[in-house]
């Protein structure tokens, strides 16, 4: 009977140790891998704290700030929320809908050189699907393409 009791306590202790170890691992994992959603203003307000942490930066593409090198696939632009503004550097082609004033979410890290290195760039859609207005339809935008014969 005492043997049984002892194994029971042993098992309980083992489970307890496992649970604590597991909790500690989870906590550590979450602590270093949580990605914050921030606007440029909020990120700038963090000061030194804001550098080199995974962040999702949300805002609009500042009109006139886009520099896109098609050959080198190098994209630079600024994200703004009206008050704050942060320069973003990204590799690869932007989504087809990327343009001045478009809402975007950029995931990456804010470097100490003051440039936000982006690892992924998403165009922000509103939840409701918005129908294209006149002039936005591909038949009108890409007239010459729509006429060329398919293969």
């Amino acid at each position: 009977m005492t043997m049984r009791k002892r194994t029971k306590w042993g098992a309980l202790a083992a489970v307890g140790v496992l649970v604590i170890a597991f909790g500690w691992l989870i906590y550590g994992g979450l602590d270093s891998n949580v990605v914050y959603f921030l606007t440029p203003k909020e990120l700038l307000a963090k000061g030194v704290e804001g550098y080199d942490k995974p962040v999702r930066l949300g805002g609009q593409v500042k009109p006139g700030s886009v520099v896109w090198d098609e050959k080198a696939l190098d994209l630079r632009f600024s994200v703004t929320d009206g008050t704050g503004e942060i320069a973003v550097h990204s590799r690869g082609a932007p989504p087809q809908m990327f343009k001045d004033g478009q809402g975007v979410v950029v995931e990456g890290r804010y470097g100490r050189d003051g440039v936000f290195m982006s690892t992924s760039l998403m165009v922000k859609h509103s939840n409701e699907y918005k129908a294209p207005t006149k002039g936005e339809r591909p038949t009108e935008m890409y007239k010459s393409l729509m006429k060329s014969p398919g293969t």
Partner: protein
Amino acid sequence: MTRLLASNAIVVAAAVTALGAVFGPVAIRRGRREWLMYLYAAVYTNFVLVSLSTLALVYGLVSHDFSISYVAQVGSRATPTFYTIISLWGALEGSIVFWAWVLGMYAAAVVWFNRTREGNLVPYAATTLLAVALFFHILLLGPANPFQAVFPVPFDGPGPNPLLQNHILMAVHPPLLYLGYVGLTVPFAFAVGAMLSGEVADDAWIRLTRRWTITAWGFLTAAIIAGMWWSYEVLGWGGYWAWDPVENASFIPWLTCTAYLHSVMVQERRGMLKLWNLNLMVGTFVLTILGTFLTRSGIISSVHAFTQGTIGYFFLGFIAIVLLATLVLVAGNSDKLGSEGRLDAPLSRETAFLLNNLFFTVFMFTVLIGTLFPLVAEAVRGVKVSVGTPFFNRMSIPMMVTLLFLMGVGPALPWRKAAGPELQRRLLPGVVVGVVLAVAALIAGARNAYAVLAFLFAGFALGVNVEEFVRGTIARVKAHGEAWPTALSRLVSGNRRRYGGYVAHIGVVMVALGVTASVTFKAEQEATLKPGESLTVAGHTVRFKGAWGREEQQRQVIGATMEVMAGDRVTGIIEPRMNYYPTSSSPVPTPQVRSMLTGDLYLNLMAFRPDGSTITVKAIWEPLVPWIWMGGLVLCIGAIIGVLPQRQRLAEAQSASGAPSALAEGQP
């Protein structure tokens, strides 16, 4: 007319299920078995009524009856009929109708097959099924009513979400997921039935639902793989799994259900883990409801979350009721749930199953916590955060690698106690295959320790599981003088669950190889090209021929024709596209994939000049990705083998009596 029929059918169904759920326990308590036919009749009637309602909704969609709110929401005259029909599950209300229909079907079928059984288990299970059905009817009458009147009746509607009508897999993934999710209600109902009827000490509830659980698990597995495939084929980022909350929602109950499929064997064989198995099944069911809550309540914004309404509170309330009720039931039955057997030796199949369950459970909690954390953080601290892929990868990869190892070692271990030389003989083929794969991976340039371990253990599991078939077949050939194919097929049909399980293991190995290889050896290249220019990724060259556009019935398409080159020869054409739907101003990327046994060449059109003079295209070499889909198929074949009726009772009888025979040895 259609609207009234569909709507009233649900009202009557709600009344029938409510009456049945109250009447069932009364009939059982009074011991009036002749009344049970009315309880079962309620189950069948519910199925007929929900079928009627579902058919009416489909008819409303196909006939463009825009006076029905759901049709006005997702229908459009321009959408092809096929996508019109499958938009039944394209938005919240329709998907709940479909859910209620699948539940009605499962309930009617499981009650019909068990209607003559003595005892109170089946009546209580039927009552539970009716109560769950009632919850979904309440949703359909309240926050998810698809049958509201629309006035004035619009002439046309917006059509389904563009993402959901862009690929044929939308016809496959959702029904599979519902068949899986909803199917898990059956073993849950029998678990509750067992606790209510006090028949919890014997394994009746497990045996009666064994095939139903494997069926639901098979559908859920297929649904997860199909969802990965959809994400790969439609979203254009070249991956298939992003630890997105909606992916996690389908994966979390899969983890507990898979744990359950293994741990019930310990209960059936050794009379252990009774309490644990009950909890696993109840937990699995709650996790399916939680998953539906996450994906359907709008709490997480994604392609799955349709609206932000009050429906979330209904789900939370239902989860709370289920948890409370089952907690009371489990506590009330705990005296009957003691263990009959005990662990004899640390090196035994029981231990392998225990470790399997430990890792699956920890895995489940990890994914669950990672998924719920952003919700909790926003509610408690008011910050918007997301838990990134690095968290899930860092936590789950070691567990996946360990589970691969267990999948290899488990089948080789006998029940009770392993003997050294026999074990060595059984593990040897696995060790050889594993070392070969690991060395091959090292030569190919894999440097990540987990990747090499994954190849090692995947090969190990493959070797051990295949060896089971080889050894069993050889034994039959020797003992009965049968031909090889006959021996193999009789071996499998003699113990379908065991060998179906091993087939599923081989499927898992294929998925694991595909995932590990594609993560380790993936290569991608992006370039802006003029016609005639080409791009090379991992030795595969594609040349840009030209861009084009065309009008289709429901959309407009811009595409690029890319030629796959072998030297100067064109060996194939890949045409990545962008599809423009009238309801959305942003295009839906439509990558195209050329599959080979060694991997996929994946092309996605990223951007193009309005006149088509240049395009930007991303080319990804995805090693072994087709193996993931094939592995999914093999997993399903394993589930089907496990579900088919047993042809030979002999083998089971032998193993039950412990008769020493080459066949009975080591049977689960």
